[in-house]
């Protein structure tokens, strides 16, 4: 078999030198059908151009660091196979809607603040002592929130969300899905405490249900569903006479 090759075009941006990002082309061997886009970037960094910067670690789709835009779609590059693009070229750009720090690295500090703001921890009126053992929780009760607990904070949903792109004040898909994860946990009593942040004008109400967040989510979290359900539940709290309860 003749040596297969593939063209990778990657965003280059060094704030110390460049005014704006540009694309650089690399022609590299596509030596193994199991190669993913991340392998291609690693090949470039090891053998062609050591200055290409990007984040990655687990390369098994769970650490959430290698999210980039691949041919226009937000993807985890560790599970985007080159064979699905070849013989076309692959264009790798940073995740949309985030400030670019360097090359393929984006600034996600905004999310880190938002994550904290929704109080993603178990809130209880009365803590039970460790000696009393575990809270009882059935698999059905876990089923209520399991889907929303699968978020790996990879930021693909924020990159896909035009509402966030148009206005970064929007709380955003992952943060709201995680708030819902705790609200639905039978051990948690903090729904009311999270309400001011969730039902804020920059919270759930800003979402216009484009739904692309759920399309790109690599873990099936379905943040769009989480947001609409939270809108509905929050509304019911106030509309139904018995709704505003804990």
């Amino acid at each position, binding site marked *: 078999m003749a040596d297969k090759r593939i063209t990778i075009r990657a965003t280059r941006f060094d704030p110390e030198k460049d005014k704006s990002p540009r694309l650089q082309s690399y022609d590299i061997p596509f030596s193994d059908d199991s190669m993913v886009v991340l392998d291609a970037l690693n090949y470039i960094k*090891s053998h062609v151009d050591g200055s290409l910067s990007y984040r990655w670690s687990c390369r*098994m789709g769970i*650490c959430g660091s290698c999210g980039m835009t691949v041919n226009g779609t937000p993807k985890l590059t560790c599970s985007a196979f080159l064979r699905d693009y070849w013989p076309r070229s692959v264009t790798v750009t940073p995740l949309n809607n985030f400030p670019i720090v360097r090359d393929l690295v984006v600034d996600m500090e905004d999310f880190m603040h938002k*994550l904290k703001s929704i109080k993603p921890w178990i809130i209880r009126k009365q803590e039970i002592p460790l000696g009393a053992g575990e809270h009882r929780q059935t698999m059905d009760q876990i089923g209520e929130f399991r889907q929303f607990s699968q978020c790996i904070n990879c930021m693909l949903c924020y990159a896909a969300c035009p509402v966030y792109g148009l206005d970064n004040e929007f709380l955003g898909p992952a943060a709201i899905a995680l708030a819902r994860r705790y609200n639905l946990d039978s051990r948690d009593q903090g729904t009311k405490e999270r309400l001011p942040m969730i039902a804020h004008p920059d919270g759930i109400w800003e979402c216009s249900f484009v739904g692309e967040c759920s399309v790109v989510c690599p873990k099936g979290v379905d943040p769009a569903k989480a947001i609409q359900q939270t809108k509905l539940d929050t509304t019911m709290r106030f509309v139904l006479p018995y709704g505003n309860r804990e």
Partner: protein
Amino acid sequence: MDFESYDVLVVGGGLAGIRAAIAVVEANPRLKVAMVSKVYPMRSHTVSAEGGAAAVLRPEDSYETHAFDTIKGSDYLADQDVVEAFVREAPIEVIQMEHWGCPWSREPDGKISARPFGGMTTWRTCFAADKTGFHMLHTVFQTSLKFDQIHRHDEAFATKLLVEDGRCVGVVAIDMRSGKFDAITAKAVILATGGLGRVYAFTTNGNICTGDGMALAYRAGVGLKDMEMVQFHPTGLPFTGILITEAVRGEGGYLTNKDGERFLKRYVPNKMELGPRDIISRAMTTEFEEGRGFEGAHGKYMHLDVRHLGEAVIDSKLPFMRELGREFVGIDIVHDPIPVRPVQHYMMGGVDADISGVTPLAGLYAAGECANVGLNGGNRLGSNSLSECLVFGAAAGRQAADYVSSARAPGSNPVGAMLKDETARIEAAYLDKKGGDERIGAIREEMQLAMDVGAGVFRTREGLEKLTKQLGTLRDRFEKIKIEDSSRTFNTELMAAMELDFMLEVADVITYSALAREESRGAHSRRDYPERDDAKYLKHTVAFRTDDISPRLEYRDVRITNFKPQARTY
């Protein structure tokens, strides 16, 4: 010059590091904690742990059996007092995780469920489906967000421990975003930087597992203990090394060779697929050598077969495995066997630390995979490591909190000088260096392949000696590296160079420690010394850095309490 100063500084943002940070502020809410991590904490490699966390929670179980299983699993190299304390603390920590929101899988009555695991005589591995590490890490990280006393320095790479008057008072770290060097000072430092799997080519470990904390401590004069004990997990996916959890076997999966035979009957007839990792990895390697493995595009492999478990069990207990199979191999594990082969997975050895994480250097503590507190000995049992991170992370945190109540704050004068020296060293060695022509990537790949061959599942004197020479050559070539990236902003090439520097250091320690242990114990299997030798080697290896190429090795007796060493058969 003023530096950001804290009471306790935690290096590393994985399960052990975050647990330690929380333990500090729980012990004393007035303490200020810094957490320095080279990645955002939820990217830490804990996230990839799948199978579960061991703890005695069921009434039928007992501390004694958990302790015995762990000690036998360690091939009697574990310190038995440490193991006995560990098994008592583990259930408390697992309950603590439950209170913090970890979605543990449950029994019908709502209690935390458990599954069987390799080397454990009963069901005691608590799990959250097959994403246990992911759920635990996100739970503990998100819980840590409620403590305003914990100040995070995300994406900051620690390059050196600051040592003043014989005590550790902080680190020099480079902020990836700005490229700025900073001294972050504290009265105590807890290392929780994880493993070193990237020293090997075929590993389950993420890109970030480069042995940083071990190298930092080693360079500060602290010994590295039992570094020859490298765990190879029997079931990694060929090519990627992605881990297929031991829980697959725990839930009843079969390992079969190319004749369709469950070959483990020749090696661990009583435990079969639930044998310990070191023995099963050797069994697979032996089968490969004797021609009974499958031949694939990415080397030899075996089949891990769960088809008989049925879709319902797979989807409730092993959903992530099905996802990984689909995503990365293009198979549905409900209908197809999974190709697997042994893969580097875990480092039993690490920074010499005691039962409370205390190291010989005052003010320095260590916990998690980067530490060796004496729990895992020659072979760690699956699902003990997540519990270890919790138990010993918390212990180190409490101990450090106690220590800083009486320790004085570091002075800024010597720290300023040390920061200047370290900045100058890195600039001279990497950033301002001219004329190098060696690529980091090339040296790293050669090191990894050499380690796979020389310090793998089976070792020999010839292989290890050859490896020391190869590593020496690579070290020489490393002096001539070229950094193409001249930017200060998010310079991942600079970070990769410093990581490679650390890896070459720990690779050396692994090799020399392995060369000196002339016996086979746990994961350390010498072809030329196939028997365990309790008379000579019922001892920990402790390696110290010297100015010479090879480390100085000391041996320390293993602490035996209730379990006399006996033949290890399953």
